[in-house]
Protein backbone atom coordinates (compact mmCIF):
# COMPACT_ATOMS: atom_id res chain seq x y z
CA UNK A 1 0.00 0.00 0.00
CA UNK A 2 1.29 3.41 -0.94
CA UNK A 3 1.13 6.67 0.86
CA UNK A 4 1.67 10.37 0.44
CA UNK A 5 3.22 11.68 3.65
CA UNK A 6 3.80 15.26 4.71
CA UNK A 7 5.88 15.72 7.83
CA UNK A 8 6.21 19.01 9.71
CA UNK A 9 5.98 20.87 6.42
CA UNK A 10 6.79 24.59 6.60
CA UNK A 11 6.75 26.74 3.48
CA UNK A 12 6.71 30.38 2.50
CA UNK A 13 5.55 32.28 -0.53
CA UNK A 14 8.17 34.28 -2.40
CA UNK A 15 6.87 37.77 -3.16
CA UNK A 16 8.44 40.97 -4.39
CA UNK A 17 8.51 42.22 -0.82
CA UNK A 18 10.22 39.09 0.48
CA UNK A 19 9.13 35.76 1.90
CA UNK A 20 6.00 35.18 3.90
CA UNK A 21 5.55 32.01 5.91
CA UNK A 22 2.24 30.34 5.07
CA UNK A 23 2.54 26.67 6.02
CA UNK A 24 3.53 26.38 9.65
CA UNK A 25 4.12 22.70 10.25
CA UNK A 26 1.71 20.40 8.39
CA UNK A 27 1.78 16.68 9.06
CA UNK A 28 -0.57 14.44 7.15
CA UNK A 29 -0.40 10.92 5.76
CA UNK A 30 -2.78 9.81 3.04
CA UNK A 31 -2.90 6.08 2.38
CA UNK A 32 -3.77 4.74 -1.05
CA UNK A 33 -7.49 4.19 -1.43
CA UNK A 34 -8.46 6.80 1.14
CA UNK A 35 -9.94 10.26 0.75
CA UNK A 36 -9.05 13.10 3.06
CA UNK A 37 -10.88 16.40 3.11
CA UNK A 38 -9.04 19.55 4.11
CA UNK A 39 -11.38 22.35 5.11
CA UNK A 40 -10.46 25.84 6.10
CA UNK A 41 -11.35 29.51 5.73
CA UNK A 42 -10.16 31.77 2.92
CA UNK A 43 -6.51 32.58 3.09
CA UNK A 44 -5.65 29.79 5.54
CA UNK A 45 -3.12 28.32 3.12
CA UNK A 46 -5.00 25.45 1.48
CA UNK A 47 -3.94 26.28 -2.06
CA UNK A 48 -0.43 26.90 -0.84
CA UNK A 49 -0.42 23.36 0.53
CA UNK A 50 -1.57 22.04 -2.84
CA UNK A 51 1.00 24.07 -4.80
CA UNK A 52 3.84 23.07 -2.50
CA UNK A 53 3.04 19.40 -3.05
CA UNK A 54 2.98 19.98 -6.82
CA UNK A 55 6.21 22.00 -6.69
CA UNK A 56 5.15 25.49 -7.75
CA UNK A 57 8.32 27.63 -8.02
CA UNK A 58 6.68 30.55 -6.22
CA UNK A 59 6.85 28.69 -2.91
CA UNK A 60 9.85 27.61 -0.89
CA UNK A 61 9.84 24.75 1.56
CA UNK A 62 11.74 25.89 4.65
CA UNK A 63 11.57 22.64 6.62
CA UNK A 64 9.86 19.29 6.75
CA UNK A 65 9.40 16.64 4.08
CA UNK A 66 7.07 15.18 1.51
CA UNK A 67 7.40 11.56 0.46
CA UNK A 68 5.50 9.47 -2.07
CA UNK A 69 5.64 5.77 -1.24
CA UNK A 70 8.65 6.61 0.89
CA UNK A 71 10.49 8.45 -1.88
CA UNK A 72 11.47 12.11 -1.39
CA UNK A 73 9.30 14.41 -3.50
CA UNK A 74 10.86 17.78 -2.69
CA UNK A 75 13.94 17.02 -4.79
CA UNK A 76 11.83 16.33 -7.87
CA UNK A 77 10.99 18.85 -10.62
CA UNK A 78 7.35 19.72 -11.17
CA UNK A 79 7.04 17.39 -14.16
CA UNK A 80 8.86 14.54 -12.41
CA UNK A 81 6.32 14.74 -9.59
CA UNK A 82 3.50 14.35 -12.09
CA UNK A 83 5.23 11.41 -13.73
CA UNK A 84 5.75 9.88 -10.28
CA UNK A 85 1.97 9.86 -9.82
CA UNK A 86 0.93 13.18 -8.29
CA UNK A 87 -1.86 15.24 -9.75
CA UNK A 88 -3.21 18.66 -8.80
CA UNK A 89 -6.61 19.80 -10.03
CA UNK A 90 -6.17 23.52 -9.73
CA UNK A 91 -8.48 26.06 -8.14
CA UNK A 92 -7.70 28.45 -10.98
CA UNK A 93 -6.62 26.49 -14.09
CA UNK A 94 -4.33 28.42 -16.42
CA UNK A 95 -5.12 29.41 -20.00
CA UNK A 96 -2.57 28.31 -22.58
CA UNK A 97 -3.26 30.15 -25.86
CA UNK A 98 -2.39 28.40 -29.10
CA UNK A 99 -2.24 24.92 -27.56
CA UNK A 100 -5.25 22.75 -28.32
CA UNK A 101 -6.79 20.57 -25.65
CA UNK A 102 -6.22 17.44 -27.73
CA UNK A 103 -2.56 18.25 -28.32
CA UNK A 104 -2.11 19.11 -24.64
CA UNK A 105 -3.82 15.94 -23.39
CA UNK A 106 -1.91 13.69 -25.75
CA UNK A 107 1.42 15.30 -24.85
CA UNK A 108 0.68 15.01 -21.18
CA UNK A 109 -0.61 11.43 -21.33
CA UNK A 110 2.47 10.48 -23.36
CA UNK A 111 4.75 12.04 -20.75
CA UNK A 112 3.02 10.44 -17.77
CA UNK A 113 2.54 6.97 -19.30
CA UNK A 114 6.03 6.99 -20.78
CA UNK A 115 4.80 6.15 -24.28
CA UNK A 116 2.48 7.69 -26.81
CA UNK A 117 -0.97 6.10 -26.82
CA UNK A 118 -1.97 4.46 -30.09
CA UNK A 119 -3.73 7.07 -32.16
CA UNK A 120 -6.90 5.10 -32.80
CA UNK A 121 -7.54 3.95 -29.24
CA UNK A 122 -6.48 7.36 -27.97
CA UNK A 123 -9.14 9.27 -29.88
CA UNK A 124 -11.80 6.94 -28.51
CA UNK A 125 -10.39 7.09 -24.99
CA UNK A 126 -10.44 10.89 -25.04
CA UNK A 127 -13.97 11.02 -26.48
CA UNK A 128 -15.29 8.58 -23.88
CA UNK A 129 -13.67 10.46 -21.03
CA UNK A 130 -15.11 13.74 -22.30
CA UNK A 131 -18.52 12.15 -22.73
CA UNK A 132 -18.52 10.90 -19.15
CA UNK A 133 -17.99 14.47 -17.96
CA UNK A 134 -20.60 15.80 -20.40
CA UNK A 135 -18.02 17.86 -22.25
CA UNK A 136 -18.78 18.62 -25.86
CA UNK A 137 -16.27 16.97 -28.25
CA UNK A 138 -15.55 20.42 -29.72
CA UNK A 139 -13.51 21.20 -26.59
CA UNK A 140 -10.75 19.02 -28.01
CA UNK A 141 -10.09 21.61 -30.70
CA UNK A 142 -10.18 24.61 -28.40
CA UNK A 143 -7.16 26.10 -26.75
CA UNK A 144 -6.42 24.95 -23.22
CA UNK A 145 -8.80 26.73 -20.79
CA UNK A 146 -9.06 29.70 -23.14
CA UNK A 147 -12.52 31.19 -22.84
CA UNK A 148 -13.72 28.24 -20.73
CA UNK A 149 -16.32 29.08 -18.11
CA UNK A 150 -15.46 28.36 -14.47
CA UNK A 151 -17.39 25.10 -14.60
CA UNK A 152 -15.84 24.04 -17.91
CA UNK A 153 -12.37 24.58 -16.49
CA UNK A 154 -13.18 22.30 -13.56
CA UNK A 155 -14.53 19.59 -15.85
CA UNK A 156 -11.35 19.87 -17.89
CA UNK A 157 -9.30 19.35 -14.71
CA UNK A 158 -11.25 16.20 -13.85
CA UNK A 159 -10.92 15.03 -17.46
CA UNK A 160 -7.15 15.15 -16.99
CA UNK A 161 -7.51 13.32 -13.68
CA UNK A 162 -9.30 10.46 -15.37
CA UNK A 163 -6.83 10.25 -18.29
CA UNK A 164 -3.64 10.61 -16.24
CA UNK A 165 -4.83 8.20 -13.54
CA UNK A 166 -2.44 9.36 -10.78
CA UNK A 167 -1.59 7.58 -7.52
CA UNK A 168 -2.51 10.64 -5.49
CA UNK A 169 -4.80 13.45 -6.53
CA UNK A 170 -5.14 16.82 -4.86
CA UNK A 171 -8.37 18.55 -5.77
CA UNK A 172 -8.23 22.24 -4.87
CA UNK A 173 -11.78 23.66 -4.60
CA UNK A 174 -12.97 21.63 -7.53
CA UNK A 175 -16.50 22.36 -6.28
CA UNK A 176 -16.28 26.13 -6.45
CA UNK A 177 -18.01 27.73 -9.40
CA UNK A 178 -20.12 24.64 -10.16
CA UNK A 179 -23.89 24.58 -10.22
CA UNK A 180 -25.71 21.57 -8.74
CA UNK A 181 -25.75 19.55 -11.97
CA UNK A 182 -22.12 20.23 -12.75
CA UNK A 183 -21.17 19.40 -9.18
CA UNK A 184 -22.88 16.03 -9.52
CA UNK A 185 -21.20 15.28 -12.88
CA UNK A 186 -17.76 16.27 -11.63
CA UNK A 187 -18.24 14.32 -8.39
CA UNK A 188 -19.22 11.25 -10.38
CA UNK A 189 -15.99 11.68 -12.33
CA UNK A 190 -13.98 11.78 -9.13
CA UNK A 191 -15.85 8.80 -7.69
CA UNK A 192 -15.32 6.78 -10.87
CA UNK A 193 -11.62 7.51 -10.58
CA UNK A 194 -11.61 6.43 -6.92
CA UNK A 195 -13.41 3.20 -7.71
CA UNK A 196 -11.22 2.11 -10.63
CA UNK A 197 -7.96 2.90 -8.99
CA UNK A 198 -6.50 2.53 -5.58
CA UNK A 199 -5.59 6.19 -5.47
CA UNK A 200 -5.51 8.51 -2.50
CA UNK A 201 -7.38 11.79 -2.72
CA UNK A 202 -6.84 15.07 -0.91
CA UNK A 203 -9.99 17.10 -1.31
CA UNK A 204 -9.62 20.79 -0.50
CA UNK A 205 -12.79 22.79 0.03
CA UNK A 206 -14.39 25.27 2.27
CA UNK A 207 -17.94 24.14 1.84
CA UNK A 208 -19.40 20.82 2.85
CA UNK A 209 -21.63 20.42 -0.18
CA UNK A 210 -19.15 18.42 -2.26
CA UNK A 211 -18.79 16.03 0.68
CA UNK A 212 -22.38 14.91 0.10
CA UNK A 213 -21.18 13.38 -3.17
CA UNK A 214 -17.60 12.46 -2.37
CA UNK A 215 -17.44 10.82 1.03
CA UNK A 216 -14.20 11.47 2.89
CA UNK A 217 -12.62 8.97 5.25
CA UNK A 218 -11.07 11.75 7.28
CA UNK A 219 -11.66 15.47 7.65
CA UNK A 220 -8.97 17.95 8.68
CA UNK A 221 -9.63 21.49 9.81
CA UNK A 222 -6.99 23.80 8.40
CA UNK A 223 -6.43 27.21 10.00
CA UNK A 224 -3.55 29.62 9.63
CA UNK A 225 -1.18 27.20 7.92
CA UNK A 226 -1.71 24.13 10.07
CA UNK A 227 -4.13 21.32 10.80
CA UNK A 228 -5.86 22.13 14.06
CA UNK A 229 -8.25 19.19 14.27
CA UNK A 230 -8.86 15.90 12.49
CA UNK A 231 -11.85 13.62 12.64
CA UNK A 232 -14.39 11.55 10.72
CA UNK A 233 -17.00 12.74 8.25
CA UNK A 234 -19.09 14.08 11.11
CA UNK A 235 -16.48 16.78 11.74
CA UNK A 236 -17.57 18.36 8.48
CA UNK A 237 -21.17 18.60 9.70
CA UNK A 238 -19.98 20.27 12.88
CA UNK A 239 -18.07 22.80 10.78
CA UNK A 240 -21.15 23.40 8.67
CA UNK A 241 -23.29 24.34 11.67
CA UNK A 242 -20.71 26.03 13.86
CA UNK A 243 -18.20 27.56 11.44
CA UNK A 244 -14.47 27.91 11.80
CA UNK A 245 -14.52 30.46 14.65
CA UNK A 246 -14.36 27.78 17.31
CA UNK A 247 -10.92 26.83 15.96
CA UNK A 248 -9.56 30.36 15.66
CA UNK A 249 -6.10 30.37 17.15
CA UNK A 250 -6.17 31.96 20.59
CA UNK A 251 -2.82 33.61 19.92
CA UNK A 252 -1.36 33.09 16.50
Amino acid at each position, binding site marked *: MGSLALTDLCASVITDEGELEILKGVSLTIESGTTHAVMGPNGSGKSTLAYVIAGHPKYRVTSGSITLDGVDVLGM*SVDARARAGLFLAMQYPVE*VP*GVSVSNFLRTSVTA*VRGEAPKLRTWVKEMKDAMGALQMDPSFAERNVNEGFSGGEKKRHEILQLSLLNPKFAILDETDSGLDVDALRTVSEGVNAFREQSDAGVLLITHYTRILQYIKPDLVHVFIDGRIVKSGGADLASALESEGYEQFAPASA
Partner: protein
Amino acid sequence: MTIAPPVDLSPRLTSLDPDVFDIPTGREVEWRFAPLDSFGVFFQPINDAGFVTAIESSQYVRNIAMADLRSSWLPSDRPLAVARSLAQNAVVVEVPKDCTVAAPIVVQLKGSAARSYQHIEVNIGAFSNAVIVLEHDLELDICGAMVVNVADGAKLTMLSVLQGDKKSTHIAGWHTTTGRDSTFIGCAVTIGGGAVRISPSVTYSAPGGNAELLGLFLADGDQYFEHRIFVEHEQPNCTSRVTYKGALSGSGSHTVWVGDVLVRRGAVGTDTYEMNRNLLLNDGPRADSVPNLELETGDIVGAGHASATGRFDDEQLFYLQSRGISEMQARQLVVRGFFAEVLGRLNQVDLRDSMMAIISRRLGLPAAEATDV
Protein backbone atom coordinates in the same frame (compact mmCIF):
# COMPACT_ATOMS: atom_id res chain seq x y z
CA MET B 1 4.48 50.02 -26.86
CA THR B 2 5.66 53.21 -28.41
CA ILE B 3 3.48 56.21 -29.02
CA ALA B 4 2.67 56.35 -32.72
CA PRO B 5 3.55 59.39 -34.74
CA PRO B 6 0.76 60.20 -37.21
CA VAL B 7 1.02 58.55 -40.62
CA ASP B 8 2.31 60.94 -43.20
CA LEU B 9 -0.63 61.37 -45.54
CA SER B 10 1.32 63.02 -48.34
CA PRO B 11 2.35 60.69 -51.17
CA ARG B 12 5.57 58.87 -50.36
CA LEU B 13 8.70 60.17 -51.97
CA THR B 14 9.91 57.70 -54.58
CA SER B 15 12.74 58.02 -57.06
CA LEU B 16 15.42 56.13 -58.95
CA ASP B 17 17.88 58.84 -58.02
CA PRO B 18 19.56 58.12 -54.64
CA ASP B 19 20.40 61.77 -54.13
CA VAL B 20 16.72 62.68 -53.93
CA PHE B 21 16.85 61.09 -50.46
CA ASP B 22 18.85 62.67 -47.66
CA ILE B 23 21.38 60.46 -45.96
CA PRO B 24 19.64 59.22 -42.79
CA THR B 25 21.05 60.58 -39.57
CA GLY B 26 18.96 58.56 -37.13
CA ARG B 27 16.72 61.48 -36.25
CA GLU B 28 14.16 60.65 -38.95
CA VAL B 29 10.97 58.85 -37.87
CA GLU B 30 11.80 56.01 -40.28
CA TRP B 31 15.30 55.52 -38.91
CA ARG B 32 14.95 56.41 -35.25
CA PHE B 33 15.21 52.85 -33.92
CA ALA B 34 17.74 51.49 -36.39
CA PRO B 35 21.44 50.85 -35.68
CA LEU B 36 22.96 53.08 -38.37
CA ASP B 37 26.45 51.72 -37.75
CA SER B 38 25.18 48.52 -39.42
CA PHE B 39 22.75 49.86 -42.00
CA GLY B 40 24.86 52.92 -42.77
CA VAL B 41 27.19 50.96 -45.04
CA PHE B 42 24.41 50.93 -47.61
CA PHE B 43 23.72 54.67 -47.54
CA GLN B 44 26.58 55.44 -49.95
CA PRO B 45 27.44 53.66 -53.20
CA ILE B 46 29.81 50.73 -52.69
CA ASN B 47 32.22 50.38 -55.59
CA ASP B 48 33.30 46.79 -55.06
CA ALA B 49 29.81 45.53 -54.22
CA GLY B 50 28.61 42.21 -55.59
CA PHE B 51 25.16 41.17 -56.70
CA VAL B 52 22.62 38.57 -55.74
CA THR B 53 21.73 35.73 -58.09
CA ALA B 54 19.49 32.70 -57.96
CA ILE B 55 21.77 29.68 -57.56
CA GLU B 56 19.67 27.62 -59.95
CA SER B 57 17.54 28.85 -62.77
CA SER B 58 14.51 26.92 -63.94
CA GLN B 59 11.38 27.14 -66.00
CA TYR B 60 10.23 29.98 -63.78
CA VAL B 61 13.47 31.48 -62.43
CA ARG B 62 16.08 33.44 -64.41
CA ASN B 63 19.04 35.70 -63.74
CA ILE B 64 19.13 38.64 -66.13
CA ALA B 65 21.22 41.75 -66.53
CA MET B 66 19.66 44.68 -64.70
CA ALA B 67 19.79 46.66 -67.94
CA ASP B 68 17.35 44.17 -69.47
CA LEU B 69 14.85 44.41 -66.62
CA ARG B 70 11.53 46.05 -67.18
CA SER B 71 10.19 47.24 -63.86
CA SER B 72 8.02 50.14 -62.89
CA TRP B 73 8.98 50.03 -59.22
CA LEU B 74 10.53 53.12 -57.68
CA PRO B 75 12.62 53.02 -54.50
CA SER B 76 11.27 54.82 -51.46
CA ASP B 77 14.43 55.34 -49.44
CA ARG B 78 18.11 55.98 -49.89
CA PRO B 79 19.64 52.50 -49.47
CA LEU B 80 17.04 50.97 -51.78
CA ALA B 81 17.67 53.67 -54.38
CA VAL B 82 21.44 53.14 -54.19
CA ALA B 83 20.94 49.38 -54.59
CA ARG B 84 18.54 49.85 -57.49
CA SER B 85 21.00 52.05 -59.32
CA LEU B 86 24.03 49.82 -58.80
CA ALA B 87 22.64 46.26 -58.90
CA GLN B 88 23.97 44.45 -61.96
CA ASN B 89 21.76 41.39 -61.86
CA ALA B 90 18.07 40.83 -61.41
CA VAL B 91 16.48 37.58 -60.34
CA VAL B 92 13.23 37.22 -62.23
CA VAL B 93 10.53 34.78 -61.18
CA GLU B 94 7.82 34.62 -63.77
CA VAL B 95 4.67 32.52 -63.91
CA PRO B 96 2.70 32.95 -67.15
CA LYS B 97 -1.03 33.49 -67.13
CA ASP B 98 -3.59 30.75 -66.50
CA CYS B 99 -1.02 28.54 -64.89
CA THR B 100 -1.25 26.65 -61.60
CA VAL B 101 2.17 25.68 -60.33
CA ALA B 102 1.63 22.75 -58.00
CA ALA B 103 4.95 22.60 -56.14
CA PRO B 104 6.46 25.60 -54.36
CA ILE B 105 9.05 27.44 -56.44
CA VAL B 106 12.04 27.53 -54.13
CA VAL B 107 14.64 30.17 -54.97
CA GLN B 108 17.98 30.00 -53.20
CA LEU B 109 19.79 33.29 -53.39
CA LYS B 110 23.50 33.96 -53.20
CA GLY B 111 25.58 37.14 -53.13
CA SER B 112 28.86 37.50 -55.05
CA ALA B 113 30.78 39.75 -52.65
CA ALA B 114 30.86 40.64 -48.95
CA ARG B 115 28.38 43.39 -49.69
CA SER B 116 25.91 42.70 -52.45
CA TYR B 117 22.94 44.40 -54.04
CA GLN B 118 19.84 42.48 -54.88
CA HIS B 119 16.90 42.95 -57.13
CA ILE B 120 14.18 40.34 -57.32
CA GLU B 121 11.21 40.78 -59.62
CA VAL B 122 8.22 38.43 -59.33
CA ASN B 123 5.49 38.46 -61.95
CA ILE B 124 2.44 36.25 -61.58
CA GLY B 125 0.28 36.20 -64.67
CA ALA B 126 -3.48 36.63 -64.66
CA PHE B 127 -5.49 33.80 -63.08
CA SER B 128 -2.35 31.88 -62.15
CA ASN B 129 -1.63 30.35 -58.79
CA ALA B 130 1.83 29.83 -57.30
CA VAL B 131 3.82 29.46 -54.12
CA ILE B 132 7.29 30.97 -53.93
CA VAL B 133 9.86 30.51 -51.19
CA LEU B 134 12.86 32.84 -51.22
CA GLU B 135 15.81 31.62 -49.17
CA HIS B 136 18.13 34.53 -48.65
CA ASP B 137 21.89 34.44 -48.34
CA LEU B 138 22.88 35.34 -44.79
CA GLU B 139 26.61 34.92 -45.30
CA LEU B 140 26.86 38.45 -46.66
CA ASP B 141 25.48 41.93 -46.21
CA ILE B 142 22.64 42.41 -48.68
CA CYS B 143 20.57 45.40 -49.73
CA GLY B 144 17.85 45.57 -52.34
CA ALA B 145 14.29 45.03 -53.35
CA MET B 146 11.76 42.30 -53.92
CA VAL B 147 9.15 43.60 -56.34
CA VAL B 148 5.99 41.57 -56.79
CA ASN B 149 3.21 41.96 -59.33
CA VAL B 150 0.14 39.79 -58.95
CA ALA B 151 -2.03 40.19 -62.02
CA ASP B 152 -5.83 40.10 -62.18
CA GLY B 153 -7.41 37.06 -60.56
CA ALA B 154 -4.07 35.51 -59.66
CA LYS B 155 -2.99 34.18 -56.30
CA LEU B 156 0.51 34.19 -54.90
CA THR B 157 1.73 32.80 -51.60
CA MET B 158 5.28 33.97 -50.97
CA LEU B 159 7.69 33.34 -48.14
CA SER B 160 10.85 35.31 -47.61
CA VAL B 161 13.07 33.39 -45.23
CA LEU B 162 16.11 34.74 -43.38
CA GLN B 163 17.60 31.86 -41.55
CA GLY B 164 21.05 30.94 -40.29
CA ASP B 165 23.48 31.94 -37.58
CA LYS B 166 25.33 34.64 -39.45
CA LYS B 167 25.20 38.18 -38.05
CA SER B 168 25.00 39.97 -41.35
CA THR B 169 23.17 43.14 -42.33
CA HIS B 170 20.11 42.81 -44.51
CA ILE B 171 17.93 45.56 -45.98
CA ALA B 172 14.98 44.60 -48.11
CA GLY B 173 12.15 46.55 -49.65
CA TRP B 174 9.30 44.19 -50.50
CA HIS B 175 6.76 45.90 -52.67
CA THR B 176 3.66 44.17 -53.99
CA THR B 177 1.07 45.43 -56.43
CA THR B 178 -2.14 43.42 -56.64
CA GLY B 179 -4.46 43.39 -59.62
CA ARG B 180 -8.22 43.09 -59.78
CA ASP B 181 -9.62 40.34 -57.50
CA SER B 182 -6.15 38.96 -56.92
CA THR B 183 -4.71 37.60 -53.69
CA PHE B 184 -1.26 38.03 -52.23
CA ILE B 185 -0.15 36.18 -49.10
CA GLY B 186 3.35 37.25 -48.11
CA CYS B 187 5.13 35.91 -45.06
CA ALA B 188 8.42 37.24 -43.72
CA VAL B 189 10.25 34.66 -41.61
CA THR B 190 13.08 36.47 -39.87
CA ILE B 191 15.24 34.29 -37.69
CA GLY B 192 18.80 35.00 -38.82
CA GLY B 193 20.86 38.10 -39.42
CA GLY B 194 22.45 40.68 -37.16
CA ALA B 195 20.68 43.82 -38.32
CA VAL B 196 17.65 43.28 -40.52
CA ARG B 197 15.24 45.82 -41.93
CA ILE B 198 12.39 44.63 -44.11
CA SER B 199 9.80 47.00 -45.53
CA PRO B 200 6.82 45.16 -46.98
CA SER B 201 4.38 47.43 -48.78
CA VAL B 202 1.25 46.86 -50.79
CA THR B 203 -0.62 48.93 -53.33
CA TYR B 204 -3.74 47.91 -55.20
CA SER B 205 -3.93 48.67 -58.90
CA ALA B 206 -7.60 47.69 -59.24
CA PRO B 207 -10.64 46.93 -57.06
CA GLY B 208 -11.06 43.62 -55.24
CA GLY B 209 -7.45 42.94 -54.31
CA ASN B 210 -6.60 41.00 -51.17
CA ALA B 211 -3.35 41.20 -49.26
CA GLU B 212 -2.40 39.09 -46.29
CA LEU B 213 0.92 40.18 -44.81
CA LEU B 214 2.28 37.69 -42.32
CA GLY B 215 5.45 37.69 -40.36
CA LEU B 216 7.20 35.81 -37.63
CA PHE B 217 10.49 36.65 -36.09
CA LEU B 218 12.67 35.15 -33.41
CA ALA B 219 15.35 37.45 -32.09
CA ASP B 220 18.10 36.35 -29.73
CA GLY B 221 21.46 37.63 -28.50
CA ASP B 222 21.77 41.19 -29.77
CA GLN B 223 19.92 40.80 -33.05
CA TYR B 224 18.02 43.79 -34.41
CA PHE B 225 14.98 43.06 -36.59
CA GLU B 226 12.79 45.76 -38.02
CA HIS B 227 9.62 45.17 -40.03
CA ARG B 228 8.09 48.29 -41.44
CA ILE B 229 4.78 47.67 -43.17
CA PHE B 230 2.95 50.08 -45.41
CA VAL B 231 -0.43 49.29 -46.94
CA GLU B 232 -2.05 51.92 -49.07
CA HIS B 233 -5.70 51.43 -49.95
CA GLU B 234 -6.61 53.55 -52.94
CA GLN B 235 -9.01 51.22 -54.74
CA PRO B 236 -12.50 50.19 -53.66
CA ASN B 237 -13.36 46.85 -52.08
CA CYS B 238 -9.87 45.66 -51.24
CA THR B 239 -8.82 43.88 -48.07
CA SER B 240 -5.65 43.78 -46.04
CA ARG B 241 -4.72 41.62 -43.07
CA VAL B 242 -1.43 42.14 -41.31
CA THR B 243 -0.42 39.56 -38.69
CA TYR B 244 3.08 39.67 -37.25
CA LYS B 245 4.31 37.76 -34.24
CA GLY B 246 7.71 37.88 -32.64
CA ALA B 247 9.47 36.02 -29.85
CA LEU B 248 12.48 37.63 -28.22
CA SER B 249 15.21 36.29 -25.99
CA GLY B 250 18.80 37.15 -25.18
CA SER B 251 20.10 40.19 -23.39
CA GLY B 252 20.19 42.85 -26.09
CA SER B 253 17.85 41.80 -28.85
CA HIS B 254 15.56 44.47 -30.20
CA THR B 255 12.66 44.22 -32.61
CA VAL B 256 10.66 46.97 -34.21
CA TRP B 257 7.34 46.53 -35.89
CA VAL B 258 5.69 49.48 -37.60
CA GLY B 259 2.38 48.97 -39.35
CA ASP B 260 1.17 51.93 -41.39
CA VAL B 261 -2.20 51.46 -43.05
CA LEU B 262 -3.65 54.27 -45.08
CA VAL B 263 -7.18 54.21 -46.49
CA ARG B 264 -7.54 56.88 -49.15
CA ARG B 265 -10.76 58.70 -49.88
CA GLY B 266 -11.68 56.57 -52.89
CA ALA B 267 -11.08 53.26 -51.14
CA VAL B 268 -14.69 52.61 -50.18
CA GLY B 269 -15.55 49.12 -48.99
CA THR B 270 -12.06 48.59 -47.57
CA ASP B 271 -11.64 45.89 -44.95
CA THR B 272 -8.37 46.09 -43.02
CA TYR B 273 -6.98 44.74 -39.79
CA GLU B 274 -3.42 44.73 -38.51
CA MET B 275 -1.98 43.01 -35.50
CA ASN B 276 1.40 42.55 -33.90
CA ARG B 277 2.12 40.42 -30.83
CA ASN B 278 5.45 39.92 -29.19
CA LEU B 279 6.46 37.38 -26.60
CA LEU B 280 9.42 38.15 -24.34
CA LEU B 281 10.98 34.84 -23.36
CA ASN B 282 13.15 36.47 -20.70
CA ASP B 283 14.06 39.86 -19.30
CA GLY B 284 16.36 41.96 -21.44
CA PRO B 285 15.00 42.18 -24.99
CA ARG B 286 13.09 45.18 -26.22
CA ALA B 287 10.12 45.10 -28.59
CA ASP B 288 8.73 48.26 -30.13
CA SER B 289 5.36 47.99 -31.76
CA VAL B 290 3.78 50.92 -33.56
CA PRO B 291 0.47 50.38 -35.37
CA ASN B 292 -0.87 53.35 -37.35
CA LEU B 293 -4.20 53.47 -39.10
CA GLU B 294 -5.36 56.51 -41.04
CA LEU B 295 -8.80 56.69 -42.62
CA GLU B 296 -9.69 59.30 -45.23
CA THR B 297 -13.11 57.74 -45.73
CA GLY B 298 -15.58 56.26 -43.28
CA ASP B 299 -17.37 54.32 -46.01
CA ILE B 300 -15.60 51.06 -45.28
CA VAL B 301 -16.37 47.52 -44.16
CA GLY B 302 -13.97 47.48 -41.24
CA ALA B 303 -10.68 48.77 -39.92
CA GLY B 304 -8.78 47.92 -36.80
CA HIS B 305 -5.47 47.28 -35.21
CA ALA B 306 -4.04 45.57 -32.16
CA SER B 307 -0.64 45.40 -30.61
CA ALA B 308 0.61 43.71 -27.46
CA THR B 309 3.88 42.63 -25.96
CA GLY B 310 3.88 40.18 -23.08
CA ARG B 311 6.24 38.10 -21.03
CA PHE B 312 6.51 34.34 -21.17
CA ASP B 313 4.04 33.22 -18.58
CA ASP B 314 5.53 31.13 -15.76
CA GLU B 315 2.06 30.01 -14.72
CA GLN B 316 1.55 28.43 -18.15
CA LEU B 317 4.85 26.65 -17.74
CA PHE B 318 3.87 25.38 -14.29
CA TYR B 319 0.49 24.20 -15.52
CA LEU B 320 1.99 22.18 -18.36
CA GLN B 321 4.78 20.78 -16.21
CA SER B 322 2.33 19.75 -13.52
CA ARG B 323 0.91 17.44 -16.18
CA GLY B 324 4.20 15.65 -16.57
CA ILE B 325 5.42 17.66 -19.57
CA SER B 326 9.12 18.57 -19.34
CA GLU B 327 10.10 22.21 -19.14
CA MET B 328 11.65 22.11 -22.60
CA GLN B 329 8.60 20.55 -24.17
CA ALA B 330 6.33 22.95 -22.32
CA ARG B 331 8.23 25.95 -23.69
CA GLN B 332 8.05 24.41 -27.13
CA LEU B 333 4.30 23.95 -26.89
CA VAL B 334 3.77 27.54 -25.82
CA VAL B 335 6.03 29.12 -28.45
CA ARG B 336 4.79 26.84 -31.22
CA GLY B 337 1.25 27.67 -30.19
CA PHE B 338 2.11 31.34 -30.34
CA PHE B 339 3.32 31.09 -33.94
CA ALA B 340 0.75 28.53 -35.08
CA GLU B 341 -1.80 31.23 -35.81
CA VAL B 342 0.50 32.99 -38.28
CA LEU B 343 1.58 29.82 -40.06
CA GLY B 344 -1.99 28.53 -40.19
CA ARG B 345 -2.89 31.56 -42.28
CA LEU B 346 -0.51 30.40 -45.01
CA ASN B 347 -2.99 27.63 -45.76
CA GLN B 348 -0.08 25.41 -46.80
CA VAL B 349 0.39 22.42 -44.53
CA ASP B 350 3.88 21.45 -45.76
CA LEU B 351 5.22 24.98 -45.54
CA ARG B 352 3.68 25.39 -42.11
CA ASP B 353 5.39 22.24 -40.89
CA SER B 354 8.78 23.07 -42.36
CA MET B 355 8.67 26.59 -40.90
CA MET B 356 7.65 25.13 -37.54
CA ALA B 357 10.64 22.80 -37.73
CA ILE B 358 12.93 25.76 -38.38
CA ILE B 359 11.49 27.58 -35.40
CA SER B 360 11.86 24.57 -33.15
CA ARG B 361 15.45 24.13 -34.24
CA ARG B 362 16.18 27.77 -33.57
CA LEU B 363 14.73 27.43 -30.09
CA GLY B 364 17.10 24.56 -29.48
CA LEU B 365 14.21 22.15 -29.33
CA PRO B 366 13.94 18.80 -31.02
CA ALA B 367 11.85 19.01 -34.15
CA ALA B 368 8.50 17.94 -32.79
CA GLU B 369 6.73 14.90 -34.09
CA ALA B 370 3.80 15.87 -36.23
CA THR B 371 1.20 17.21 -33.87
CA ASP B 372 -2.05 18.93 -34.47
CA VAL B 373 -0.92 22.47 -33.83
